[in-house]
């Protein structure tokens, strides 16, 4: 699915207007523990997280992830958004909980990476 689909499915808000919403997302990873995210390489992945600090963007960057969804209405600050913008990453924010956000995306066909 595309980043624009994720926005629609999660009723999410886009916090990085410059991002390319046509990019394809192939896999997803939902976690608040960054080392767990770093443990498995995924391709063109979206990170779904309830954690809100700059290490989330750095971790996603290390994994070449193209999109981060912050759940439960968490809003990253300007510094975090700037880091994401530098990397061309899309930052989304949804009111859904982690469980529901992952479930909605799974239901629409998005899957976890190959372990």
């Amino acid at each position: 699915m595309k980043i624009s689909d994720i926005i629609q499915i999660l009723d999410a808000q886009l916090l990085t207007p410059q991002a390319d919403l046509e990019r394809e997302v192939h896999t997803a990873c939902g976690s608040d523990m960054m080392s767990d995210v770093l443990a498995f390489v995924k391709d063109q992945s979206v990170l779904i997280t309830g954690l809100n600090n700059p290490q989330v963007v750095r971790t996603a960057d290390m994994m070449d992830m193209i999109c981060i969804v912050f759940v439960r209405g968490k809003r990253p600050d300007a510094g975090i958004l700037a880091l994401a913008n530098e990397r061309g990453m899309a930052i989304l924010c949804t009111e859904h909980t982690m469980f529901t956000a992952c479930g909605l995306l799974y239901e629409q066909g998005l899957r976890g990476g190959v372990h």
Partner: protein
Amino acid sequence: MADAQDKILLEYQVPGDDFTRAGEASADLKARLKTLGFPAASVRKAAISLYEGEINLAIHAGGGKIRVELTPARIEMWLDDEGPGIPDIALAMSEGYSTAPDEVRSLGFGAGMGLPNMKKYTDEFEIASEVGRGTHIRMAVDIGPA
């Protein structure tokens, strides 16, 4: 073997008191490796490994020093600190073992996967540590075909 003029040396200082800055060295290395044209898979392995090491310097060692040596054939990295050291390296290397306090965990680290991840993503990994003196890590990623 690459000759001396193909060698690039980089050095980074990792602060021990500013967790938000941890990862700057790895992000810089990653950007440089990309610009230099290293294969994407090797770039990712080196960047993830250095990032985990950098986080460890920030959260466990009160900061430290990173050196990187690049040749067309490999990415070699040294992490040195004068922190508390590791009493039992085998235990520290096991998946899930962590002494990170709750405040570090609430920042998304302390899953005890850092050292195992570093070993997993690198072709060479060596760690030496002395309690009260510090910890020294050397790791290398061999450059595979693009």
